[in-house]
């Protein structure tokens, strides 16, 4: 590819993106973006409802750790594309979007399960023991100690699940679902490279935007940041540690919530 070719791709893509009709027409960017966000949102809600209670409970009682790890390992070996196509050709395919929704939720569950489980399980054991010693019940312990301590990893799980959903929702276009992926597949169908590249740019931008927004939410909403009695340096660094590969131990060195059970 020469530099001139490359430049022409850039200008073609730019002009495709800046053509108003491509945004507003039937099957245009706005409609596809709406479908994409709707699909991602619905599936994220379903995933949270299914995964969070299970992961928190398992983490609380300290069982099922091998299950949480194995599910995400197994999930990696199964091609998303194959599951999407199999489900849409199967009996579920008759019920509109449900084949797509089930496939998306299946692939969003493992990261959330694993992270939320790890978060609760690895909550500082000293703090948990202290809270037990103060006479907290199981429910109080989970709500007031383990949950706040696990919050960063739960948010990491939600972030990963959301990014995964944005990616899988793109693939839903291949077996005929909606979403921004349709711009890409339609571009391939018409041999319009500008449209393919424009669609890909929009999808990539959406994925990065979703991740960025959720990181911001995590920083703002971390319950350990708002405790006025916590040491200053601890609240200062809170945003940086939750979303990295750092072992949860780095997070666990945190004070107990200021006001334990009443």
């Amino acid at each position, binding site marked *: *590819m020469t530099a001139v*070719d*490359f430049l022409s*791709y850039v200008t073609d893509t730019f002009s495709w993106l800046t053509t108003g009709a491509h945004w507003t027409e039937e099957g245009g960017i706005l409609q596809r973006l709406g479908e994409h966000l709707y699909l991602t949102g619905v599936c994220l809600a379903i995933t949270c409802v299914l995964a969070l209670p299970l992961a928190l409970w398992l983490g609380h009682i300290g069982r099922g750790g091998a299950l949480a*790890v194995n599910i*995400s*390992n197994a*999930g*990696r*070996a*199964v*091609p*998303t*594309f*194959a*599951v999407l*196509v*199999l489900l849409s*050709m199967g009996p579920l395919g008759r019920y509109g979007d449900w084949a797509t929704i089930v496939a998306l939720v299946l*692939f*969003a569950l*493992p*990261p959330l399960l*694993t*992270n939320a489980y*790890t978060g609760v399980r690895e909550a500082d054991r000293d703090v948990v023991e202290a809270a037990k010693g103060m006479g907290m019940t199981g429910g109080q312990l989970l709500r007031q100690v383990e949950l706040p301590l696990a919050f960063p*990893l739960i948010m*990491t*799980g939600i*972030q*990963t699940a959301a*990014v*995964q959903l*944005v*990616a*899988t*929702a*793109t*693939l839903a*276009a*291949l*077996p005929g679902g909606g979403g921004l*992926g349709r711009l*890409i*597949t339609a*571009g*391939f169908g018409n041999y319009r*490279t500008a449209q*393919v*590249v424009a669609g*890909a*740019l929009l*999808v*990539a931008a959406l*994925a*990065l935007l979703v*991740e960025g927004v959720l990181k911001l939410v995590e920083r703002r909403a971390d319950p350990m940041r708002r405790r006025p009695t916590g040491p200053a340096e601890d609240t200062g660094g809170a945003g940086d540690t939750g*979303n990295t*590969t750092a*072992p949860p131990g780095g997070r666990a060195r945190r004070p107990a919530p200021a006001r334990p059970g009443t």
Partner: protein
Amino acid sequence: MSSTSPEGCLAANDWWCGEYLRTRQSELVDATVEHIWITAVAILIAVLLAVPLAVAARRWRAARGPALAVTTILYTVPSLAMFALLLPVFGLSAAVVVTGLVLYSLTVLVRNTLAGLEAVPQEATEAARGMGYGPGRLLFEVELPLALPALLAGVRIATVTAVSLTTIGAIVGYGGLGNLIYDGMESWFKAQVLTASVLCVLLAVLADVLLLALQRALTPWTRSRRRRRAAGSPGGPAATASGADGGAPAPQLAGRAG
């Protein structure tokens, strides 16, 4: 099956069909071979790039942040978009798929190799220096061998992921078994879709088992070390990213299937 009616399950469009396996054997073999070489080439290139990158990120602190940031951003880009973005660069060719897979694999490999290098015990490098090892010899004879288990754990994760992502290459016609899934989807040919999907999962599992065997053969010392670690000494920073089995990768890298 075929003894009662010549084309029974094919005509009925069953999910599982012995007749299909027999008549399309060469097609299945060709697709599997394409799948394997696309994945293998991508992983090879990714390893060749990731090791120097990780070494550089370790030597020059300034390179560390950008190297990790770029690979993380690449990991966030959905696969269909990644292949579509590479289309104008390479045209409709296998290079689109291979390059996309290389870019995804880099994230896991750079991270794991870096974690492995950083977990090399200070005493080991000090001892080597005391014995008169130069920087090059130190790297190749002490640091890289000690980082090998972490690197290989990364290779396993990257390979399994790449096997499943190769299917998306069907969009440019180079998806290995993904091509069969794509064609089967368009012609509503159930046996072809299911057979190719099952083969793809089998391929991923087989690759994982083979790489585990390779890992065990190349790093026999990790087994005794792991036992010692389990006996009480702390695992060090790389433990979560590189557990010698590759069993528990860093949690948030768990899903890269789309």
